């Protein structure tokens, strides 16, 4: 009869943000300070439980959590008919990525959204999105996955449209909602197909019984497209730049992380469920094609943008391509025997790039939002000389930008190097394309930096952004720097358990 912190941490990662999301509107009835305190407490407690769970995974191995029973671990076959959460290395990697971004975006919100009315709804939606993404990542149950998918979609849609006095945010939110709802309903159809065929919803159980017939292939196609769409992979990327550009600045990294969460789910489904019956080579090749398209089209669309947030949005699409490419290469090697030579390296590169990208992209979006906050314009042609008045933001943007471009000392370089080395062995032309994309990314970061921060002081702003925004960017910068200084440690302690968590046994 006691509360075991460690055993229950996978559910507290959901329970705490949900509880505090519903408490914030109540606290708002009392006072604004209490509301802010409740939000901050919910955020910090959730992040704390994410780290408790991850620490337990890294020290004593993965486990599954069964909802509703008297025992939290699966005791018999009937446990597989309950809702299950997988607390493994992969969930740990993904939830850490989400938690870091949520912490940054949450602290950033205080000053950035100051003066808006209805902030209790903003905080509630923020925590709901946090819970939704965590649920999507942790769940090992298809129907539960659909529920969290919908929670994430609806809550993040509310966040995007939060500044509803700006017509364009509402338009972006409508686009996002339309795509999410259609995707969600198709996801439900494919879950129905699988459930009708096998009568179970558990990933592990389905992986064991799946035969790979026509119905399974239809279900795979739908699930694949839905999650690739939410991950803003190229043929389905059209919502992403609009949403990234028009959502409130503090929310943008969080929307980016929900799409990253969908990518995590896609990988978990492909690695954990479909690869046994559908063929790892075919699935991997599909990922490689999508990755190449995302990388190249994303970055070439970014070339012509003059809206700073939209430009970073396209860069984000192209970074998603790197992960798809690297993980696709890793997936193909699981069957054709190259896993030992370069497959493991590709997976390490891909997953390391995911956590890196989550952090530095959040930093980039937040520093771009700081520019917009200070000057009131997103147009690169009208910005200039901000380094004179905003030295800290300049440094933060530079670190994030150099990291996304893969400049040597920074974290983006370590993961990109792993990707280049491994995909070169798969096919040299892929590595060349990846390098070219990286060079164009560097040029684009140079364009933003030159246009917005360098040059004579145009008097666009009175000074630096408020302290809480700087603190949020500072936290993310410190994490980027830590990842840059100790890439080996991160790969060994966080990324390798994640690959093991996916069930890949070398």
């Amino acid at each position, binding site marked *: *009869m006691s*509360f075991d912190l460690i055993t229950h941490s996978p559910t507290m990662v959901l329970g705490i943000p949900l509880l505090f999301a*519903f*408490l914030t*509107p109540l606290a708002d009835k009392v006072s604004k300070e209490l509301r802010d305190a409740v939000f901050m407490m919910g955020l910090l407690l959730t992040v704390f439980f994410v780290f408790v769970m991850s620490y337990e995974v890294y020290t004593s191995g993965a486990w599954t959590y069964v*909802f*509703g029973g*008297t*025992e*939290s671990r699966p005791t018999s076959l009937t446990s597989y008919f309950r809702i299950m959460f997988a607390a493994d290395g992969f969930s740990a990697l993904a939830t850490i990525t989400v938690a870091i971004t949520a912490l940054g975006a949450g602290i950033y919100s205080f000053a950035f959204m100051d003066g808006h009315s209805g902030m209790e709804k903003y905080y509630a939606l923020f925590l709901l999105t946090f819970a939704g993404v965590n649920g999507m990542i942790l769940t090992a149950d298809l129907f539960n996955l659909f529920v969290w998918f919908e929670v994430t979609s609806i809550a993040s849609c509310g966040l995007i449209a939060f500044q509803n006095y700006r017509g364009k945010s509402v338009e972006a939110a409508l686009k996002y909602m339309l795509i999410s709802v259609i995707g969600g309903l198709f996801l439900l159809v494919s879950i129905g197909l699988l459930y009708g065929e096998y009568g179970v919803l558990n990933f592990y159980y389905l992986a064991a019984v799946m035969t790979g017939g026509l119905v399974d292939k239809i279900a795979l196609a739908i699930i694949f497209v839905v999650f690739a769409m939410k991950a803003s992979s190229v043929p389905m990327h059209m919502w992403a730049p609009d949403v990234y550009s028009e959502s409130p600045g503090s929310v943008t990294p969080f929307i980016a992380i929900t799409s990253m969460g969908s990518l995590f789910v896609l990988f978990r489904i492909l690695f954990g469920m479909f690869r046994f019956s559908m063929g790892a080579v075919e699935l991997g090749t599909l990922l490689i094609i999508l990755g190449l398209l995302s990388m190249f089209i994303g970055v070439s669309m970014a070339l012509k943008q003059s809206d700073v947030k939209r430009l970073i949005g396209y860069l984000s699409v192209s970074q998603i391509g790197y992960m798809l490419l690297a993980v696709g290469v890793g997936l193909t090697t699981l069957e054709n025997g190259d896993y030992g030579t370069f497959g493991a390296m590709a997976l390490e590169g891909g997953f390391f790039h995911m956590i890196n990208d989550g952090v530095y992209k959040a930093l980039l979006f937040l520093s771009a939002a700081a520019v917009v906050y200070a000057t009131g314009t997103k147009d690169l042609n009208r910005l200039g000389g901000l380094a004179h008045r905003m030295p800290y933001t300049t440094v933060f943007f530079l670190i994030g930008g150099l990291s996304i471009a893969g400049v040597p000392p920074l974290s983006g370089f370590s993961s990109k190097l792993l990707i280049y080395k491994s995909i070169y062995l798969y096919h040299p032309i892929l590595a060349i394309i990846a390098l070219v994309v990286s060079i164009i990314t560097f040029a684009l970061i140079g364009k933003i930096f030159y246009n917005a921060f360098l040059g004579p002081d145009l008097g666009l702003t009175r000074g630096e952004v408020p302290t809480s925004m700087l603190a949020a960017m500072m936290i993310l910068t410190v994490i980027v720097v830590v990842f840059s200084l100790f890439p080996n440690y991160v790969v060994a302690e966080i990324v390798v358990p994640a690959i093991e968590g996916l069930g890949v046994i070398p």
Partner: protein
Amino acid sequence: MNWKMSRVVRTVTDIMVVPIIVYGIYLIIHGHLTPGGGFQGGAVIASSTALLIVSYGSFRDYKKDFSSMESLGLTLFILLAIFGILLGATMFHNFGAGTGGLFGGTVPEGINPGYVNTGGTIPMMNIMVGLEVAAALSLILWMMAKASDSMEVEA
């Protein structure tokens, strides 16, 4: 704000609101036995709000009450789920079933007409969901009535 429906409509509304709410509560309480449950019952209760708004015009500011009720329902729902952990089991553990307390009756085996005082946390959660849905849908209806009111003034 100042319009009202005719006396006939208002009188029928006054009479009908009570059975509608009672029916909604019936659906919620019997959620674990018959078709229905928290969402459906809550929607039925909210329809009484719709009836009141239509017949009396959008009335005074209930926004704060509705939104408090909504958050309260959800908070209690998630607390019920977390309570399972505090009692030494797992999240969403049905700690109330078969204990003899509120909704804690044991279900006899075989064919039976269905006993309301069973189900443990399921009916409790249904009540919380009913509270949430009734408040949320009423709030939406109230907001819509208010918005269409202000549009009529402009036109």
